[in-house]
Structures are given as C-alpha cells and as structure tokens.
C-alpha cells in the first residue's frame, strides 16, 4: 500500500465521529467524516473512498437506505462496514442483504474496528470482481452438488430444502472453499483465509474442521465428493460452484 486508505465515516453523533476520526488517523488511515446522507454523497463526489463506515441508525435517511442507494450508484464497488446499535442476527442479515460487506455492533473496541476495516479491504481486493458481495453479480445463494449455501444467512440447504446450520468456523472454511473451487489450498492458506474475524477464536486444526464439514455435507472421507484431501499439500474443493436461484429454506406458513 503506497498510499493511505481513505475511510469515510458516516455517523450522526459528533463525538463518535471525532473519536473515530482521531483513532483511525492515528492508525494510518485518511479519514473524512459525514453526519448524514447528504454529507456522505458530497464526500464521495470529492475524492475516491476506499471504505465507508456507515452507522445504521441515522436521522432521516437511515443506514440501510443509504447502503441500498450506494449499491445502485456509481460507487457500488466501495465496501461498506455497517455499524449497528443492535447485535441481533436479523439486523446483520438485513444489513448484509442491503449490500454491507461486514458489520460491527456498537459499542466496539477501536482495535476491533481497525481489524475489521483491514479485513474487509483485504477481502474485497483479493476476491475476483464477480465474487464481490455487494456488486451486481453477487450471489447470495451458491449451489454445488446436492447442496446450496446461503451466504447471507450462513447456512446450508440440502436437496429437500432442509436448513443445515454451520458453526462459525465451519462456515468460514466452507466459504473459502466455495470461493476457491478446484484449487488446492494448503492448511496455512486455509488458516489465513478463514481468519477474517474472531481470529483468536480460531485455533482448531483445519483437519478437524474439514472432517466436521464432511459430516455436514454427508461426504465420505475415503471417497469424497466435495472436499478432497491432497496428500502433503492440503485440500481441494472439487465440486463445481454455481450461483443458485435464491430459493430460501422450505418455509412453512405461520405457526408450525
């Protein structure tokens, strides 16, 4: 990185804007702050922005509206880190569906924000453009073999539409696999790629996670259909991954 990444902070609280600006500047970022959607658009006019830190709860146009508008505008490729006051799963899903690349619930540690910003920047730069979450070609639902993977709600769906939930580590590993199909990935690479967040929690061996994933995918370790072991090298995700029609889990009406 020859030049500092330019972060745009959108938050209606002046103190939080100032505190974040100071902290991010201290950490080597170039920072612009905006109090609302109008100021945000003005800042986007002025110069290239590498990432937007967007507060969900804004007076007037809220973060979700701004997020959706951004995705429909010329700035659709700018990654968005959503700040939410809630830590509920539904908010995360809604935020991600609206096109946010990641989210962080308030209150957060400054260090955590910096780590997330760096992770999102690294991820969006590493992924091929058509795999970028938030871009037009974003596929919230991926298909391989008998399975579909909902990348927003983060679960698997089997052929009958039954929801199979994954643990955080399992999902991250599977995400790496489906993002890099037919490529041999070493254990080190897998460890690196899955360390997007909560790195400190991720200390189980890749082998254990692979065996758990195989269990979920009903994959036979001796004759695997999906995750093949490459001796002395690592693993390869051998199934073809295609974007799937966004058919959700089998939903039953009302109270079941």
């Amino acid at each position, binding site marked *: 990185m020859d030049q500092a990444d330019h972060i745009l902070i959108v938050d209606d609280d002046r103190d939080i804007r100032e505190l974040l600006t100071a902290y991010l500047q201290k950490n080597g970022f170039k920072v612009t702050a905006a109090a609302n959607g109008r100021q945000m658009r003005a800042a986007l006019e002025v110069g290239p922005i590498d990432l937007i830190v967007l507060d969900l709860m804004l007076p007037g146009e809220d973060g979700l509206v701004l997020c959706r508008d951004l995705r429909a505008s010329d700035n659709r490729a700018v990654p968005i880190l959503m700040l939410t006051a809630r830590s509920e799963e539904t908010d995360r899903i809604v935020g991600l569906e609206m096109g946010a690349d990641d989210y962080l619930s308030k209150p957060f540690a400054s260090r955590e924000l910096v780590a997330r910003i760096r992770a999102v920047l690294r991820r969006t730069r590493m992924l091929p453009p058509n795999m970028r979450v938030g871009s037009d070609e974003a596929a919230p639902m991926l298909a391989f073999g008998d399975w579909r993977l909902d990348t927003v709600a983060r679960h698997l769906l089997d052929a009958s539409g039954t*929801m199979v*939930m994954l643990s955080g580590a399992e999902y991250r590993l599977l995400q790496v696999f489906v993002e890099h199909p037919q490529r041999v990935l070493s254990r080190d690479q897998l460890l690196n790629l899955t360390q997007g967040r909560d790195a400190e929690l991720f200390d189980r061996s890749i082998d254990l996670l692979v065996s758990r994933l195989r269990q979920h995918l009903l994959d036979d370790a001796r004759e695997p259909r999906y995750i093949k072991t490459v001796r002395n090298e690592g693993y390869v995700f051998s199934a073809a991954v295609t974007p799937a029609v966004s058919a959700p889990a089998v939903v*039953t009406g009302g109270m079941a």
Partner: protein
Amino acid sequence: MKLAAIRSHWWPYSLFGRLTLILCVGLVAAHTLSFGLILYEKAQSSKAMMIYYLGKDVASSIAILERVPPAERASWLGKLERGRYYYVLGAGPQGRPSQSPLCKEIAAVVSAAIGPQYAIKTTVMDHALRGPQLNLHLALVDGTPVTVVVSPPDMAISPWVPVILTLQLAILALFTWLAVRVAARPLAQLAHAADMLAPDMQTAPLPEDGPLEVARAAAAFNAMQRRISAYLAERVQILAAVSHDLQTPITRMRLRADMLDDGMQRDKMLADLAAMQALVEQGIAYARSQNQAQTPDEASCRIDLDALLRSLVYDYQDAGQTVALHGQFGQPLISRPQTLRRILSNLVDNALKFGREVEVHVQPAANQVAISVMDRGPGIPQEQLSAVLQPFYRVENSRNRETGGSGLGLAIVQQLTIALGGTLVLSNREGGGLMVSLLIPAKS
C-alpha cells in the same frame, strides 16, 4: 379457643361448602318448624273437635240409656259404641284419679253437654300398648252406674308423611346445591383466569355474560387484564427505549476509554462498560423477545436439528468452552431456527456462567423434542424455580454473586420459548446443578 376449633372443624373451607351449609341448615330448620306447627295445629283442632263431639255424643247416648227400659240397655251398648270410646254398665275399669288438664277439659265438656244433674268422676288407666285410657264414671237417674271408656286420640301420622318430608328435604338440598353452584362457579372461573394471567398476559378474555353481577365482574377483570398488559408493554417499551439510548453514550465512552493511557484505569473502565453493555443488550433482547412471543417475525422452516445443535456446541468448543452434546434427534424439525438458536445459546451462556462443564442433551419424545441444558453449578432453590422465569427476578444465592446479571436472561428464554409454542422446565439435578429442559413441538 375450643369454640374456634369446633367452628374451624365444621366450617367448610370453600365458599361453595359454606353457602350450601348455611342455606341447607336454614331451609331445613324453617321447613321443620312449619311442619311441626302444622302438625301441632292439626292435633289441637282435631282434639277440640273430638272433645266437642264426645260431649254431644255422650249426652245423646246417656239420654237414650235413660229412656230405654233397664233390661234393654245392655243391647244398646253395642250401637252406642264409637271408634274411640265405648260404654260399660256398672263401675267399669277403675283407674287412678287424674287432674290432668285434658281430663278436666273432657269432663267439663261432657258435663256441660249432659247437664249438671250428672256428677262425673274421671280416672285414668295406663295401657302399655294404647297409651293412657280415660274413664268417665257417672250414674243414670235411676242410680245405674255407667262408665265411658275413652281411648286417647290417635295422633299417629300417616306413613307417607316421612316419605314426603324426605323428598322435600332432598329437593331443598338439590336446589340449594344448584343455586350455590350458580353463585360460586363464576368465582372459580375468575380465579382460574387470574391464575392463567402469568407469564405472558395473553390469556383470552373472560366471557362477559351470565348474571348481571358476574358479567360486571368479568368485564372489570378483563379491563384490569388489559390495563396490566398495557403497563407491562409500557414497561418493556421504557426498558427498550432506555437501553437503546444508552448505546450511544456507551459507545462514546468505549472509544474514549481506548484512548486512555493509564492501563489499569482503562481496563477497569472497559470492564464497567462491558457490564453496562451486557445489561443494555439484555434489556433490548427482552423487549424483542416479548415482541417475538406476540408477533413472531421469523418464519418456520425445516431444519436439521442435529446440525443446529452441533454447530452451536462447536462454536462454544472453538471458543475454548467445555460444552458437550449427547443424543440426537435424527430427523428434520419444523421450527424457527434463529429463535431456537438464541434460546439455546442463552441457556448455554447461562449454564457456563455457573458451572464450567455444560452438557446439552437432545431426546425425541412423543410429538415433541426435549433439549436439556445442564450445568454443575449451584442450581436454584426449589421454591424459586418458577419465579426465575419472571423478568427482573434474581436468585438470592451464590448463583448470582459474582455476575450480578440483569435478571432477564431466563425471562428472555421463556418469552422466546412461548414464541416457539414450547415449554420450559427447570429442575435441579441430582448431585447438584441446574437442568433447563426445552420442550418444543416436533412435527416433521
């Protein structure tokens, strides 16, 4: 003391019993009194009638005996005999002299009827079988003694009278029971409705019909229930609003704390902020869980319960916690996955707070699945097991010593369980620790 003891012994505990007792005793007493009065009246009047006719009859019989020739008198005696009395020529049976008012009255009536020329002497004889027998001794004009032997009036009542009486008492008892039931049942229904109020205030309103007083009580009760619901909703709203508004200042303080140079002070402040944030999150989660219970916003779908439990347990294991999974369900389940996951992670978090080793057991049961989360912590005193499901309730023992807690954790779980149509059962484990069992309907 003695009286009170007797009273409490005989005094029924239920309103039903008391009313029945009072009404029955009162009605039976009144009934017996009037029955007795009628009986007495009847006896009095029939006695008066008998004495009156006795006088007239004795007068005419004596007049006949005076007029027929002495030799024919004996043959007339049979014709003059009546049901209750007969005539004997001669001194007749002699009894003891009597001064009873009845004897005097009979003597007076008879002598008034036959005239003052006859001197009447009365004696009484006791018969074992027929009761006292009255003898009227007098002499005809020619000196022949005549005795009128009078049996006492037969006061025996007809055999059907006790039957009728019993029947009447039975009818009385039946209608008393019916009346008391009509009066007491709405009260029982009211009590039942009041019992059903907790914990979610979603009880169907009482029917506002029936007798005027009952309808009014039901209407008042329904109004009260609505008010309580409104207060509870308001309380939740206030809690949610305050919790929500606290998040911004906490965020600011969190960021400011990061800037502090004094490591020890900063760590203390961060710990305080984390505690505050935990309370705020619980407040918001509780408000949300109550909305969930009333209007679930998550759709039900078919889920692999075993995968859900595995992923949950693995997440804890990956974070270095000791959480083990036992058993399996083995088939898809129709439920709300996020709600179910939140319930279970709240239960596991709670269990981890009090006991380091947590077990999750899953077991299929008839039309439902039982998921139990068990710890080896201090448990909860038996009498507080149901109270801990109430919001803001805190167990006053070691279970809360170090953590404090908002008193909302289990209330949130309870609300979410209601949203799933399930039930939550708390029990203390043998050998110590708490077991929370979640029972949810399993339709696959």
